[in-house]
């Protein structure tokens, strides 16, 4: 076991891949000389050279499109977006090319590519830099979407994402880069599509991903002090989503709260809620609960931004209203 940060876990996964496979290269804005907007690729240029650590112009559509073509030609591009909000200017390439090209070619073309992108609000970056578009990308067949919440999963998922033969969106919670945690020294991967039961419990199922997880840990702690036992689940993978693990848990506990850190409308928990209702509706002892951020453009002002975000008090309040716990 080693204690490292989420940032170090991602760095470890990337350097392993660069060391192991000459076809792996990294491309993005300011990843070379600058070292990455969030310092993930700091020192990479010196170690691997400009052919494998490619600084790009500010042309997201062009370099993501080029990534797709290079992947289709047998390379393994890992692309860094400075923010998942910037995926918008490359959305056509991500959706119509990366995701659709395999299907519309009758399975002839694979796109083994990873797009890493920081996501989420909470740093007073305003409406254009705080969004969580991993939710939109989950709607697109052909893409996989993962979102780790801790160093162990960050390392396990970057390994499996790089190994995958499909385009994988690796959504990094921008507020969690400095979070420390244990990782195994022995090589492991985290399977894409498998949720993790973080805490086993009997009375209520709590589900989230990414930076929702630290909130759920606090909620579980508070509920514990009231004698309520929580089963805490980290989805880890948003597409494909592990409906089975969540439904099994809800069928055991009879209660569930699903937490989105994105805006509530159209968040991934809306889809999960529908699945829980369909598959486990008869087991529920009360309403299925869902908390998400306010349906507003993200405000800059700290007080307003915090007010818009999902929070521990909001979650506890919902649980009190829904289940009187």
């Amino acid at each position, binding site marked *: 076991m080693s204690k490292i940060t989420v940032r170090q876990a991602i760095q470890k996964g990337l350097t392993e891949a660069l060391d192991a496979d000459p076809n792996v290269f990294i491309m993005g804005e300011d990843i070379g000389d600058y070292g990455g907007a969030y310092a993930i690729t700091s020192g990479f240029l010196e170690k691997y050279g400009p052919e494998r650590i490619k600084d790009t*112009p500010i042309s997201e559509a062009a370099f993501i499109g080029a990534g797709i*073509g290079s992947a289709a030609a047998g390379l393994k591009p890992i692309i860094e977006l400075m923010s998942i909000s910037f995926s918008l200017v490359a959305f056509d390439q991500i959706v119509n090319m990366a995701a659709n090209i395999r299907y*519309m070619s*009758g399975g*002839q*073309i694979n796109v083994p590519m990873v797009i890493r992108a920081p996501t989420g609000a909470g740093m007073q970056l305003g409406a254009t830099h705080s969004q969580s578009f991993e939710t939109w990308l989950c709607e697109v067949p052909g893409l996989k979407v993962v979102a780790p919440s801790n160093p162990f999963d960050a390392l396990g998922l970057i390994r499996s994402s790089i190994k995958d033969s499909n385009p994988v969106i690796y959504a990094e919670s921008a507020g969690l880069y400095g979070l420390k945690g244990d990782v195994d020294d022995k090589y492991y991967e985290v399977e894409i599509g498998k949720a993790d039961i973080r805490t086993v419990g009997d009375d209520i199922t709590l589900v989230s991903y990414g930076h929702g997880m630290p909130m759920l840990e606090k909620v579980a702690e508070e509920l514990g002090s009231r004698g309520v036992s929580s089963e805490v689940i980290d989805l880890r993978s948003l597409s494909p989503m592990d409906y089975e693990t969540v439904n099994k848990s809800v069928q055991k506990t009879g209660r569930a709260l699903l937490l989105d850190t994105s805006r509530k409308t159209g968040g991934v928990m809306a889809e999960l809620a529908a699945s829980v209702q369909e598959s486990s509706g008869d087991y529920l002892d009360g309403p299925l609960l869902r908390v998400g951020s306010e349906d507003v453009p993200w405000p800059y002002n700290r007080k307003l931004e915090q007010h818009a975000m999902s929070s521990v008090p909001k979650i506890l309040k919902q649980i009190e209203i829904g289940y009187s716990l």
Partner: protein
Amino acid sequence: MEKKEYLDLYKKMYLIRRFEESCGENYSKGFIRGFLHLYIGEEAIAAGSISTLREDDYIVTHYRDHGHAIARGLETGPLMAELFGKKTGVSGGKGGSMHLFDASKNFMGGHAIVGAQIPLAAGFALASQYKKKDSITVVYFGDGATNQGTFHETMNLASIWKLPILFFLENNFYGMGTSVEKIRTNGKSFGNLAENYGMPSTVVDGMDVLAVKETTEEAIKKIRAGSGPVFIEATTFRYQGHSMADPAKYRTNEELDEWKEKDPLVNFHKHLIDQGLATESDIEKVSKSADNELDEAVKFATESPEPDLDDIKNDIYA
């Protein structure tokens, strides 16, 4: 050039035209649905330029893609079957007219969002460069695509990275129904777009198959030598509307007739005879062979099975 090469060029152009005419007929009969964009009038571009490529070179094109596919040597049977939506189609019946693929021939589509294929193509070129191979990529696009951000972004990217890519503009003077005059302040020619990115460019008569071939050969020689991207603009005209749904009311018959005077097939036929490069009987022979091939292609498409319902979820993930 040997006689056979001339006749091959003629046959490609002839086959493309007959294929497109057959598509039109089969669309009217309801065997082909969706959007169908015909390449009639533009045959010299695909036939001339693609004849200069090596097997390991990549081709990426737009939705008016039948001509490029045939020029690349994709078989007309599976091509027609794709248009008929059949399981035996080049894309398994899942792509249709606008999304033709054959990865085994490095024919990487058939792309239907205007300009979106341009960054993708840069990726194939990047892979050649990365692997230190001297294969190149040709990307085709129309005049309409030159106002997309992806075009400009990729011209810049290819230029700064010296990617081995040929930007091939098929200027048919109309982006769907909008004339070039309406979308450009800078005259009809597009060469200055390349200048802005420090890229050599040439304008070629896209109705003259030999001129297209020669111009492409020169460009590819430079690219293969590692000097970076080149831009070719070929002027041409599509005889039909933008798609089968378009009666082309935005242009005059006189304009169309003027272009038909320069018809690539008619004029190349005349050139072959006048220059003693082939005889009428040679030309009749290759034409007949193309006619037969096309009859077989339509038969193959007609008789092929549709995809199984189970196929709906195949090919999404590797």
